[in-house]
């Protein structure tokens, strides 16, 4: 479980986050959603410790993350995996070396054990046999999956995903979403996903937080989205006229979307 308590963040005069309080639950896919500029990435970076909040605290289970020194933060981070928007794979390393990097850096495993672990993670993301390829030689969707494999290689307790579907086609996005959800359930980890993909919201949104101009304006799950009377939520999820018609049709025929 990760808990953000009264998080404020300002850059110079611009207040980006205004008192966010929310609990990201264990074993669930927790989504932070909102329009571009709502403060999603800033909140995610604060949760993961890449940015310091102007005020407020972040709890990782019963540990106050905001009060740890650098050494303690590094110890916590070894329990954290993160998938970046642009995958952030090291260009000069092969797929195998990318996934093996955390093992090389932090474990005393033998070469064979490391290779087995890398192959298991690659298999887990359905990418067998690409060990020797370089990031530039695989597609965007495959890069995301390599990013997931690297993020889970140390068996993290917490998984963060920054826009995991950006730049991917809808089908590949669903594959990535399903993969993240199944990994979350299998390993009983706390997963926080930052997204503005409404397909993700409706497919894997088990605990959703909607940000609007730096404020938390709605929380709930995918089953509560349709019935919600929050205009901001409806504007965000059903942004296009086509989706609005679809929603109205679903509501009038009492069909589950």
């Amino acid at each position, binding site marked *: 479980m990760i808990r953000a308590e009264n998080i404020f963040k300002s850059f110079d005069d611009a207040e980006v986050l205004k008192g966010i309080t929310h609990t990201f639950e264990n074993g669930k896919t927790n989504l932070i959603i909102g329009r571009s500029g709502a403060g999603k990435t800033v909140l995610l970076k604060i949760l993961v*410790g890449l940015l310091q909040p102007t005020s407020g605290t972040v709890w990782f289970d019963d540990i106050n993350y905001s009060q740890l020194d650098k050494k303690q933060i590094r110890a916590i981070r070894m329990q*954290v995996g993160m998938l*970046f928007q*642009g995958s*952030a794979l090291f260009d000069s390393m092969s797929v195998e070396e990318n996934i093996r990097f955390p093992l*090389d*850096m932090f474990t005393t495993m033998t070469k064979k054990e490391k290779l087995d672990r890398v192959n298991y993670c690659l298999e887990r993301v359905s990418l067998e046999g690409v060990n020797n390829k370089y990031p530039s030689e695989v597609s965007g969707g495959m890069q995301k999956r390599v990013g997931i494999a690297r993020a889970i290689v140390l068996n993290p307790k917490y998984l963060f995903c920054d826009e995991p579907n950006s730049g991917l086609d809808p089908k590949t996005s669903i594959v990535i979403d399903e993969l993240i959800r199944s990994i979350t359930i299998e390993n009983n980890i706390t997963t926080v996903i930052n997204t503005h993909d409404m397909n993700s919201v409706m497919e894997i949104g088990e605990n959703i937080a909607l940000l609007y101009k730096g404020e938390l304006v709605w929380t709930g799950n995918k089953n509560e989205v349709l019935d919600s009377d929050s205009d901001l939520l409806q504007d965000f999820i059903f942004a296009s006229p086509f989706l609005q018609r679809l929603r109205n049709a679903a509501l009038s025929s009492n069909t589950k979307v």
Partner: protein
Amino acid sequence: MSFNFFYHFGRYIMMLRTAIARPERFSMYWKETMRQMNDIGVGSVVIVVLIAVFIGAVTAVQFAYQLQDSFVPKYYIGYIVRDSTIIELAPTITCLVLAGKVGSNIAAEIGGMRQKEHIDAMEIMGVNTASYLITPKIIAAVIVIPLLVAIACFVGIMGGYLSSVPTGLITNAEYTRGVRSFFVEYYVFMMFVKAIVFAFILTSVSAYQGYHVKGGSIELGQASTQAVVYSDILILLADYLIAILLTQ
């Protein structure tokens, strides 16, 4: 202006403090140091040799011209080429050139990693990025650049020979006598002190520029340029200070 200087100086010192830390895994740092030694050392031999040979050659020709019709013995050309190469030309010119080649490369490499979120990715894994990305570069440079300077020194003296003996400016015996005359071992010590200090400056300043880069490709280009400019200025300043300190 002065506030800006103190801000950057303070951040530079803090970066170095973070960089001096116990490695998470020694073998990874060793591997990275070896890679950097290869990149900085082997990758710079050709340019260093080329520059050194011409520096030695030009020094010899210029002094031969200066000594024309004077009462100074001609073998002094070898002596002057040797000492000017050891004391000043080999360490300073080599490191100014390396600031351009290696320094800009370091700033661009680390800056590119910052922009592509590679540094963030490593931080989240728990890696001390200042230590992992910067310390091996500094260690590699501090070991390899003095060796490059020693090569430059030897090649520079050879360059002086090639430009003055085959062309008939002086004889082989005169040049050899000059190179062997009035040798002071302390000058070699000075050369290595300069090489080590300059190597540290050019790698750490360039790493600082890359590590703290913000924005996009224009800012990355600026960081790379600033790495070279600031390294060059600081190398020249350090050259002056070392000259004062070691010749008291």
